[in-house]
């Protein structure tokens, strides 16, 4: 018989000792990783057992599993299946909550597409005309906002989540104040795209805070590059001049 | 000077899987192999020869006793610096060429880089593979494998060779070449421990031999003494004086029978021992 087996009990003891000694290093790495991107924890996975989770948690193809589920939701999307689409979106984000695309597109589907599915494409105008339609649109907009709220844990440094919330508050719920707060949060997070500043300025103007809007746009204008179309520097410059004229401020 | 191989009171037990019993493969073996000799280790299958060789090489640990190679414990890796080993039915990395194989083992044997190329070339010639040195070992015949195996055993210029069935699968000409190499090696003062079932070969090459049966040493001595024939009708006379022998010779001449001691073959002796469980009649 192979006497190599006789060292296994000692090896196991030493392995336990090593694991214990390295547990603080393990925690340190986990904390650093957790801060950067969502680390899958037990509570995230336990509700999803049996739904192809085994492949997902193997790590190597977790992202691909989530991506494939996301792609497969297109089937339910085309069939205008509310429950099916919601289920796939929830599964994709629980398997891999890191891609912003899941949260942004999921929120857009909730806020824009699902109300139309509920009332029917031919009755889409009811969402703005009738009380019942408006209630359905409101309901799904609030669900989209709650969905985006879930993403905060995994997307804490991402301004786009706040921007998406701001757009829903503004366009779907007509809540300019909340929309402005969301855009401010996006700008404060850092790394917000150029249009976020312009839209925040418009919202401040709508709220009657024209001085604040002017200060914002002026400071933003200084940072804009001359040769990048999307920065829309001339447009921002025109808006500043218009605001100054309205506020009777000399150039 | 210490013996080339010194086996003192060595036993080896193997645990039988699924049972508390043990199988004794080698039982209290005592063997000394002198330097500069060719020693044949014989025995039927399962007699403990391979286990003895593995203990000599340090591949297996004795359950009892000790084993020394050229004065060093066989369990130490340093003992193998001066050993060249050819296993039975050798297997080598198939993707290597013969030349690459010798380079590989030469490096592991500690041959200096400056000497290695010349040594490899000369060994390929010596074993008759100079034309096949650049072919992959995977395409070698059985005989070619034995030859390259012998070459890798020699690459480190060892003092002690342990050859397990060196002529197995080799044609008679090749076998004769290998036997000639063994004799050359002995002339160089090196020691050879040879295991073989081709007893006629062992008889012609070896100085001394030992026969193992069921893990025990049944017989050991010079080949000449071992092959001195016994006749079923021969008489065993102990303590015969010179005067007594003279009288016996006179008696034999009168009665017309031969008093000489005819030789029997080692094969006959081997079969007698193996069938008789280690006891000579």
């Amino acid at each position: 018989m192979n006497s190599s087996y006789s060292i296994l009990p000692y090896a196991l003891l030493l392995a336990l000792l090593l694991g214990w000694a390295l547990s603080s290093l393990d925690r340190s790495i986990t904390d650093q990783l957790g801060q950067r991107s969502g680390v899958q924890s037990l509570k995230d996975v336990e509700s999803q057992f049996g739904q192809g989770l085994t492949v997902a948690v193997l790590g190597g193809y977790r992202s691909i599993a989530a991506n494939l589920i996301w792609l497969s939701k297109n089937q339910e999307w085309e069939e205008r299946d509310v429950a099916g689409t919601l289920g796939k979106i929830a599964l994709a984000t629980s398997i891999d909550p890191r891609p912003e695309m899941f949260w942004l597109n999921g929120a857009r589907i909730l806020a824009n597409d699902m109300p139309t599915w509920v009332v029917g494409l031919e009755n889409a105008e009811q969402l703005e005309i009738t009380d019942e339609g408006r209630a359905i649109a409101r309901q799904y907009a609030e669900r989209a906002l709650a969905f985006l709220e879930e993403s905060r844990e995994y997307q804490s440094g991402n301004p786009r989540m706040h921007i998406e919330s701001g757009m829903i508050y503004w366009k779907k719920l007509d809540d300019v104040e909340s929309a402005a707060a969301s855009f401010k949060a996006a700008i404060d997070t850092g790394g917000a795209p150029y249009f976020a500043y312009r839209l925040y300025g418009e919202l401040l103007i709508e709220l009657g805070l024209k001085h604040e809007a002017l200060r914002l746009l002026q400071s933003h204008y200084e940072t804009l590059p001359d040769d990048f179309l999307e920065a829309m520097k001339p447009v921002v410059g025109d808006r500043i001049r218009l605001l100054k004229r309205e506020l009777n401020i000399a150039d | 000077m210490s013996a080339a191989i010194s086996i003192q009171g060595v036993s080896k037990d193997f645990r039988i899987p699924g049972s508390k019993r043990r199988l004794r493969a080698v039982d209290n073996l005592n063997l000394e192999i002198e330097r500069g000799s060719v020693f044949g280790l014989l025995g039927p299958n399962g007699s403990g020869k391979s286990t003895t060789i593995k203990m000599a090489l340090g591949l297996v640990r004795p359950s009892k006793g000790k084993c020394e190679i050229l004065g060093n414990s066989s369990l130490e890796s340093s003992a193998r610096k001066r050993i060249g080993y050819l296993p039975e039915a050798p297997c080598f990395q198939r993707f290597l060429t013969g030349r690459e194989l010798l380079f590989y083992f030469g490096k592991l044997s500690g041959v200096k880089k400056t000497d290695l190329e010349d040594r490899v070339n000369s060994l390929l010639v010596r074993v008759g593979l100079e034309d096949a040195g650049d072919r992959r070992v995977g395409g070698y015949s059985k005989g070619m494998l034995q030859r390259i195996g012998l070459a890798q055993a020699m690459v480190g210029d060892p003092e002690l060779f342990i050859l397990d069935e060196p002529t197995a699968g080799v044609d008679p000409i090749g076998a004769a070449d290998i036997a000639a190499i063994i004799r050359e090696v002995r002339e160089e003062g090196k020691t050879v421990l040879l295991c073989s079932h081709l007893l006629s070969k062992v008889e012609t090459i070896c100085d001394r031999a030992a026969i193992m049966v069921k893990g025990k040493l049944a017989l050991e001595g010079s080949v000449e003494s071992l092959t001195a024939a016994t006749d079923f009708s021969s008489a065993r006379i102990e303590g015969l004086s010179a005067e007594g022998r003279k009288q016996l010779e006179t008696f034999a001449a009168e009665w017309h029978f031969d008093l000489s001691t005819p030789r029997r073959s080692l094969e006959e002796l081997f079969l007698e021992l193996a069938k008789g469980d280690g006891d000579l009649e």
Partner: protein
Amino acid sequence: MSVGGDKLNWSLSRTLVIASNTFREAVRMKLFLGMTGLAICALASSFLFREFNFGSSELKFIADFGFGGMTVFGSALAIIVTAQLLLGEIEHRTAMTLLAKPVYRSEFVLGKFLGVWVTVACFIGMLTLCLVLALWMRESSIRLDYPEEIEQGQSLVHYGGILWFSLAQVFRIGILCALVTLFSTYATSSIFAMVMGVLVWIVGQLQHVATEAGGVVENLVLKTIYSVMGYALPNFHLFDVGEGLAMGEALPISLVGKLLIYGVLYSVFYLAVATASFNRREL
């Protein structure tokens, strides 16, 4: 070490000779070539999946396939090649001739490990190269298709991040190779060593879940089992440093250093146990 003036020093050069031979054997294996082809095909197939919105999400998809190939195929290769090349030597008796030379068993074990590890690291390197090429091609075509939407000088892909991810996988593979080397030193068949390797890979990937479960469950037996699993095995999940690396997330040097220390300590431990085990093995 020895009597009579004979000394045999432990030699790195003998170890490297064995490692180099192992590497040569490994890259010739059909399995290695097959896995490499499969992983590249999987990466190429990611081009077939197009989402509605192009741009960074599509690039992330391609990156995910590449990273997935490195971890899954790389891990499978590490397990199979280590078991086959180490146990294969014992099963085919080539180890006997080798160990009859003046070679320490620890040199043999370490040489085998290094040979396989370098082989799988080369596999990851090749896949990294293919991934970088695939992403660069797609990024270039996106720039051509949507020039106004991408700022001049802005990169959609963080190629340095891809290299960091690959490096993290090399550390992970090192631990896995060392573990399978350990199993191979006492296993009697390569299938057993491979099965154990796969089990440890899965359990190691879920180790963080086991640790958390150990703190949550009340049943004492289960609690002990989860805790033992949590401490006895390495946490492979640590090396999932985030596919977001390719999309610009920064990886602190301190994190790379910690992963290196973690990887080295576990690898050294398993190799030490493997050597002790192999020293006692009878061939």
